[in-house]
C-alpha cells in the first residue's frame, strides 16, 4: 500500500515573501508597472496574480489590472484526462499591445502554459508575454521557461506538489507528497 | 425403436415415473424394452408433443423470413409435433390446391404435422368469401384472415353460417382498423411518455364483442386468437358462461412481458396485439390457468434480421416463438405438468381437430412426444428459425425441451 505523507516545503509566510519578491522583479524589469496586465491561470494562478498586483501597488503608484484565464478548451489532453471544473475567462482590458504576465501556481510539463499562450493569442495580440510561477518543479515536455520563479523545487515524477492560498483555501503553503511503499 | 428411461410419463391417469418404448410410430409399452436408440430423460417429463394453433411459416411467398422446412425445424426444437399454419402467405391460402401445397410441403419436411388454416375471404381482402368448401375438402378446419380482422360483419355472418353447418372453426384476429390506426404499441402511460401513437385494448375488444353477438346468432365454433386484454378475457368468460362454443388462445410473450419493455425501443418487442399492462399480463396468466383461455399458441411471426434493424415505428409486427414457447410459459406461470401439456398440447389438438396429436400417453397412443425438463435453466441466444426476432433473447428461462419425437422418429435432441 502506498502511503503519502505530505512534507511542507513552504509555509504561509514563505509564500507571501515569494509573491512580494516576484512583484519587485516584475517592476524592476519593466522600470515600473505601466502597460502591464497580470493574467492568472485557473485555479490558483488567479489569487496569486491578485497577490502580485496588490504587492506592486504597495510600492508603485500603479494599479495593475488582473484577469482570469481558463485554458480548459485549449488543452491537448482533453481525450484522456477528466474535465476538471472550468473557471471563467475574464479580461479586464484588451490585451493587444500590452505586456501580459501569465501567472500560475506550479510549472511542470509546460502544457498548461502552451494552452494559455494559444488562448491569449485568440483573445488579442499582446506586445509581449511573460510567465510568473510560484513553483517550478521541472520535467518540462515543451520548450517553456518561467521569467519569474518563487521557488525551484526539484521533484520526481511520482511526487505530487500541492499549493494552497489563503484567498481560496483555509491555509497557505506548498507541500510535496512523497509516496512510500 | 426408441427406449426412453427415467421418465415422468404423463398418462390419462396422471404422471407416472417409468420407462417407455416407442415402436413403429406408436407407444409400445410403458416399460424399458429392446431398442436401437436409448434416451435418458433423467426425470424429465414425457408428454404429448406440443400443438401450435397459430404460427406463420411464410411459405409460399415470404421465404426469406421462414419456410415450411425451417419452420418445422424450429417447431421440433420447441417440442412441437403439430402446427396450424396461418394463411396470410402470398398467395393467401384461399383455395383447396394452396392448402394441399402447404400440407405437402409439411409432409416433405417430415418433422412436424403441418395443418394449413384457410382464409375466410378471398385474398384476405375482406370483400368476398374464400373457397370454403374446397378448403374444407382439403382438410382445413380452422378459418381465419389472420393478420387482419374481418371487418364486414355481414360477410363474417355468412362465413359463420356456412362453417357452422360444415363444422369448421372461425378464428378471428380481432383488430378494429379505425381504433388501431397508426398505433404501434399499447395505448397507455408508456406510449404517452414516448410520444408513440398507441393502439388501445378497445381495438381488440370491440371486434370480439361484435363477433360474439354473431356467434350467438349462428352457433359456429369461434376461436379468439392472441387474447391480450382483461376486457377480452371478460367477454370470453361471459360468452362461455352463456354456453357459446367459444375458445381462446394466448401467446407466451403476452404472458411474459408488459409494455414497459418497449422503452428499450427494440423491435423485438413489437407485435400485434401489443404488449399491454402488468395488470393485463397477470389477468392473462390467471385466465389460462382457470380455463377462460383454453390454450397457448405462439403466433410465431418470423421477420428477417435486416427487416428488424429499423426504428421501432417502422418495424414489422411480430416475433418468433416456437423454440421458446414451453420454457416461457413454464417460467411465467409455473404450471403443474399436466396443466402445461393440457394448454400446449391436448386442448390445441382438440380445437384443431388433430386426432393423432395431444393424447395422454398410454400403450398404443401415437408416438408424437416431447421430453421436457421443467427445471433446466437456459438463456436463448441464437435460433434455428431463419429469423431471430425474439423478445426472449438473453432472457433467463426455466424449462427446456430435451428431445422431440414425431411419428416415432427423433426430430430434435438436446440430450447427451
Amino acid at each position, binding site marked *: 500500500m502506498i502511503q503519502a505523507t505530505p512534507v511542507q516545503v513552504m509555509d504561509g509566510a514563505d509564500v507571501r515573501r515569494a509573491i512580494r519578491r516576484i512583484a519587485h522583479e516584475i517592476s524592476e524589469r519593466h522600470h515600473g508597472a505601466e502597460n502591464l496586465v497580470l493574467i492568472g491561470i485557473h485555479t490558483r494562478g488567479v489569487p496569486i496574480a491578485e497577490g502580485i498586483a496588490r504587492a506592486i501597488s504597495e510600492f508603485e503608484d500603479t494599479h495593475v489590472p488582473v484577469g482570469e484565464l*481558463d485554458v*480548459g*478548451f*485549449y*488543452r491537448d489532453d*482533453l*481525450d*484522456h*484526462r*477528466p*474535465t476538471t471544473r*472550468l473557471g*471563467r*475567462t475574464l479580461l479586464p482590458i484588451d490585451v493587444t499591445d500590452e505586456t501580459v504576465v501569465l501567472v500560475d501556481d506550479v510549472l511542470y510539463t509546460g502544457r498548461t502554459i502552451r494552452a494559455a499562450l*494559444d*488562448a491569449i493569442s*485568440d*483573445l*488579442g495580440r499582446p506586445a509581449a508575454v511573460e510567465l510568473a510561477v510560484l513553483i517550478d518543479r521541472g520535467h518540462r515536455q515543451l520548450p517553456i521557461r518561467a521569467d519569474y520563479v518563487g521557488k525551484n523545487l526539484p521533484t520526481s515524477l511520482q511526487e505530487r506538489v500541492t499549493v494552497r492560498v489563503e484567498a481560496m483555501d483555509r491555509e497557505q503553503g506548498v507541500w510535496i507528497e512523497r509516496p512510500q511503499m | 425403436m426408441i427406449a426412453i428411461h427415467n421418465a415422468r410419463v404423463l398418462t390419462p391417469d396422471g404422471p407416472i415415473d417409468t420407462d417407455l418404448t416407442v415402436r413403429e410410430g406408436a407407444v409400445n409399452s410403458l416399460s424399458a424394452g429392446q431398442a436401437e436408440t436409448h434416451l435418458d430423460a433423467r426425470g424429465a417429463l414425457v408428454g404429448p408433443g406440443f400443438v401450435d394453433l397459430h404460427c406463420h411459416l411464410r411459405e409460399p411467398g415470404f421465404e426469406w423470413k421462414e419456410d415450411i422446412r425451417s419452420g418445422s425445424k424450429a417447431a421440433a426444437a420447441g417440442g412441437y409435433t403439430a402446427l396450424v399454419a396461418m394463411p396470410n402467405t402470398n398467395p393467401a391460402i384461399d383455395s383447396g390446391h394452396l392448402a394441399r401445397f402447404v400440407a405437402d410441403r409439411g409432409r416433405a419436411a417430415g418433422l412436424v404435422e403441418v395443418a394449413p388454416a384457410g382464409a375466410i375471404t378471398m385474398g384476405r381482402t375482406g370483400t368476398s368469401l374464400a373457397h370454403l368448401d374446397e378448403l374444407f375438402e382439403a382438410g382445413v378446419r380452422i378459418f381465419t384472415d389472420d393478420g387482419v380482422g374481418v371487418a364486414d360483419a355481414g360477410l363474417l355472418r355468412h362465413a359463420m353460417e356456412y362453417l357452422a353447418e360444415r363444422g369448421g372453426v372461425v378464428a378471428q384476429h380481432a383488430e378494429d382498423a379505425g381504433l388501431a390506426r397508426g398505433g404501434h404499441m399499447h*395505448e*397507455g*402511460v408508456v*406510449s*404517452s*411518455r*414516448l*410520444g*408513440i401513437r*398507441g393502439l388501445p385494448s378497445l381495438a381488440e375488444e370491440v371486434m370480439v364483442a361484435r363477433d360474439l353477438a354473431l356467434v350467438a346468432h349462428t352457433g359456429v365454433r369461434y376461436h379468439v386468437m392472441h387474447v391480450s386484454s382483461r376486457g377480452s378475457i371478460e367477454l370470453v368468460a361471459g360468452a362461455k358462461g352463456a354456453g357459446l362454443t367459444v375458445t381462446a388462445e394466448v401467446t407466451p410473450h403476452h404472458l411474459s412481458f408488459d409494455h414497459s419493455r418497449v422503452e428499450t*425501443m427494440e423491435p423485438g418487442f413489437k407485435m400485434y396485439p401489443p404488449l399491454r399492462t402488468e395488470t393485463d399480463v397477470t389477468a392473462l396468466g390467471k385466465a389460462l390457468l382457470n380455463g377462460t383461455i383454453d390454450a397457448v399458441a405462439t403466433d410465431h411471426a418470423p421477420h428477417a434480421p*435486416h427487416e428488424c*434493424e*429499423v*426504428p*421501432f*415505428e*417502422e418495424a414489422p409486427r411480430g416475433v418468433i416463438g416456437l423454440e421458446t414457447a414451453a420454457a416461457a410459459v413454464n417460467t411465467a406461470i409455473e404450471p403443474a405438468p399436466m396443466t402445461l401439456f393440457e394448454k400446449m398440447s391436448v386442448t390445441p389438438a382438440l380445437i384443431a381437430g388433430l386426432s393423432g396429436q395431444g393424447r395422454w400417453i398410454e400403450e398404443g397412443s401415437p408416438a408424437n412426444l416431447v421430453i421436457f425438463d421443467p427445471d433446466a435453466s437456459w438463456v436463448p441466444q441464437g435460433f434455428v428459425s431463419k429469423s431471430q426476432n425474439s423478445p426472449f433473447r438473453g432472457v433467463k428461462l426455466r424449462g427446456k425441451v430435451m428431445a422431440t419425437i414425431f411419428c416415432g422418429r427423433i426430430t430434435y435432441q438436446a440430450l447427451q
Partner: protein
Amino acid sequence: MKHLLSIADLDRAAIEGLLDLADHFTEVLERDIPKVPALRGMTVATLFFETSTRTRLSFEKAAKALSADVLNFNPSGSSLSKGESLKDTVLTVQAMGTDLMVVRHGAVGAPARVASWVDCPVINGGDGAHQHPTQALLDALTLRRRFGKLDGLRVAIVGDIRNSRVARSNIDAFTALGAAVTLVAPPTLLPLEIGSYPVSTSTELESILGDLDVIYLLRVQLERGSGPVLPSLPEYVARYGLDRRRFGLLGKEAVVMHPGPMNRGIEIASDVADDPRALITDQVSNGVATRMAVMFRLLTGKGQP
C-alpha cells in the same frame, strides 16, 4: 454520459452541469475570435432525416466554434431514397471517420437505434414526438439567465402537446429543475394518461395568464397532419393564440418563449413576437452555446462518468 438521447436520462445535477458548461461557451461566443480548439481534428456528422434548417445550422455552428469539422448528411436525393437502410447509411457515415453524430428522424427511437449500431456518441436532434433534448436544455438555460433559477417558476406550455417532442423534453427538464408546469391545450391535444405526468393542466388559456412567469408557445404543426383532432385554425387562434390583448394580461415580469419557427398571427401575434419580453432570439443564441456544451461533454474527458 455516452449519448444524449432523452432528457429523462439526466438528473438535476447533470442538467445543471451542462448549463454551467454552456455559460462558459457563451463567453467564448462573445469573443472577437469566437472559437476554441477543443474539438480540433474531430468530425461531427449531422444526419437530419426530417427537414430542419435552423436546428441543423445551430449544431453546425456549435461544432465549428469548437473547431470540429462538419459533415452534413442530407437525405433527399441521397442513397437513402434509393432504398439504403438507415443502418447502412449510418455505418457508411461512420466509416468516413465520424466522432459524433447528431440524428433527427421522424420515428421515435431512431437515434437510440443508431446509437446501438455505431461506436461514436449520438445526440438526438429530435425523434418523432418523443424528445428534443438540446431544445429543452437551451430553454432551461434561457430561463436560468432570466430568472436566476427555475425553482418555483410558473411555466405554461401551450399548444399541440400530445404530438410535441419539445413539450415532452421541456416537461422533463423544467420539472427536474423545480419549475411548476401547466399544460394548456384542447383535450384532444393533451397527452393521454395525463395523470401520470408531474404537471397541471388547463383547457382555458386566459384563466391562468395572470399567474404565470413564463408562457411557452408551441408551433401549430400544420405539416404533421393532426387531422380531425385539431379544431379549425381560426378556432385554435381564438382560444389559444397569444394576441396583444392576452399578452397584456400577463404579469409585468412574465416572458414569452417559442421553439421556432413561429407562425406569426397564429400561435403568437406578430407584435408580441417582437416585444422585448419575448425571448425567442435569446433562445436561438443560447442554442449554439448549449449545443457546444453537449458536444464538448460527450467528446472529452472519457474518464468522466
